[in-house]
Each structure stands twice: as structure tokens, then as C-alpha cells.
């Protein structure tokens, strides 16, 4: 008897569901960064507003990467419903703290996903996830560096103005290239 399930897609129902959940997480991240960008704009933190806007675009690209993967393998990629986006933040520092927390959550999600793939012996998806796991190293690094500026520069006086300017200079370099 023909294997119709496998002919439709190589993704198991479990992995397909988990990938769709991750699509939703990335969409939520994208929308959250957009809200952060808006908040920074309203408070006059011009550079940070641009920084979060750029992050928002990147998260959408992550979402599409996952989305296209599910589609390409014959699965059902679900356009996610995005709800509960926090629009208000207590302080400039609070925005960056929430951003780091979000990236940590995303890293944990990808670790769990990779674990499931390993257990399900889905090495194709496991391999696909390597890019994201690597990307999360950079994402966490940048978010952590940004938050550290609040201690390094200090918020007193023109501190927040300086912090905002310094955000633009953060870049990730794992030392491998030069």
C-alpha cells in the first residue's frame, strides 16, 4: 500500500506543528520589536528606534525562512495570528531588558526544537535549524551588549543620549574573519 503521508511531506505532524509554532514566535518577535521602535521614537531615542526597526525586519525574515521551509517540504505553513504585543515600557532600560529576555526565549525555543528533531531522527530539519542556532548567538550578544551600555555609560546627565548614540556601534564579530 502506498505511503500517502510520506508522499505529501517528509515532515512529521509533530515537527510541522513545532515549526509553525516557531513561525508564530518569530512573527511575535517582529511585532514586539516594532512596538519597541515606536516607543523609542516617542521618547526621542532616534538611533534605538532605527535599531529596533531593523531588528523587526530581521525577525520577519526569520519567520519567512521557517515558513518557506515548511512550504518547500510539502507541509502546511500557517500564517500566524499575532496578539498581545506589549506597547508600553517602564523606561529606556526596560526596553533593552525585554529585548534580551525575548532573545533568550527564542534561543530556548530553538534548542527545544533541535532536541525534538534529534529524537524524531529528522536530521534534515535538524540541519536546517543550525543557521538559527548560530544566529541566536549573535542576537543574544547584541542584545546583551546594548543592555550593558546602561552600566558602562550610566544614565545620569546626558547618559541616555550617549547610550542611544552608542547603540549604533554595536556589532558582532566572533573573531574568525580577520
Amino acid at each position, binding site marked *: 500500500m502506498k505511503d500517502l*503521508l510520506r508522499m505529501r511531506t517528509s515532515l512529521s505532524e509533530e515537527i510541522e506543528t513545532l515549526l509553525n509554532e516557531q513561525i508564530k514566535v518569530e512573527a511575535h518577535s517582529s511585532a514586539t520589536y516594532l512596538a519597541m521602535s515606536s516607543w523609542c521614537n516617542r521618547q526621542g531615542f532616534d538611533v534605538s528606534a532605527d535599531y529596533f526597526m531593523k531588528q523587526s525586519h530581521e525577525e520577519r525574515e526569520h519567520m519567512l525562512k521557517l515558513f518557506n521551509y515548511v512550504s518547500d517540504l510539502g507541509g502546511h505553513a500557517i500564517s500566524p495570528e499575532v496578539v498581545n504585543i506589549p506597547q508600553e515600557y517602564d523606561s529606556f532600560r526596560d526596553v533593552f531588558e525585554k529585548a534580551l529576555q525575548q532573545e533568550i526565549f527564542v534561543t530556548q525555543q530553538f534548542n527545544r526544537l533541535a532536541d525534538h528533531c534529534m529524537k524524531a531522527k529528522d536530521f534534515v530539519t535538524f540541519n536546517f535549524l543550525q543557521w538559527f542556532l548560530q544566529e541566536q548567538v549573535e542576537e543574544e550578544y547584541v542584545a546583551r551588549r546594548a543592555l550593558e551600555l546602561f552600566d558602562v555609560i550610566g544614565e545620569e546627565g546626558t547618559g541616555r543620549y550617549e547610550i542611544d548614540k552608542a547603540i549604533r556601534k554595536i556589532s558582532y564579530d566572533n573573531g574568525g574573519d580577520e
Partner: protein
Amino acid sequence: MPTPTNLHELFRTAFGAVYQCNRYNCYFVEFAGGISPFKVADFLDLKQHVDAINVAEMAKNPARAADVYVLMPNRSERCFVLTLTEVLRFQELLQGAKAMMALNSILHECLYSPAYC
């Protein structure tokens, strides 16, 4: 209707059956007095939908509208009007069929090799 040789019974209960059609690469679901075809993805959608029906809510909600669940599967002529018992029977049927499909996949992976058989 496809010829019987193309139709394999995947799972049967006292209240229905699911067949695989190797000619059209689809499944036939026989339940509640009718038989209808579903493409693979549509069958999986149907199963997810039926699994998600809140039977506890149907049981405790006294409103008459909650006595039945109206199910209109995508891309299908069929419309199911299910009582609580029928929902449970339908769930059992679809879950059993899905398990047999998964088993068939495992057998294929273990036994089927175009190069050797």
C-alpha cells in the same frame, strides 16, 4: 467510485471506516451515513478539527445549539451534524485511521526499497 482493488481498508469501527484509495491518492471516510473522499492534507485538517471539538463544553452547556456540532470540512461536499456521542465516535475513527497511516509509513521506511524488491 474507484474499483475495490484500489481501495484498502485502513481502519474500521462499529460506526464507520476509513479507506485508502491508491488510484486517486486520497482517503475515503465512511461515517454517519455517507462516504466521501479527502485529499491527504484535507484528511489531516479534518482530524485536527474533530480532535479540537470541545466535548466537555457540549456536555455541560444547556443551550440547544450546543447539543450538536456542525462540521463543514474544507473542499468537501460533506456536512456533518454530530451529536456528542458521534463526535467521540468520529474522533476514535479518525485517530485509529491516522495511527494506521503512521504505521504504514514506518513499514515503508523499514521494508520498502526500490533497489532490492
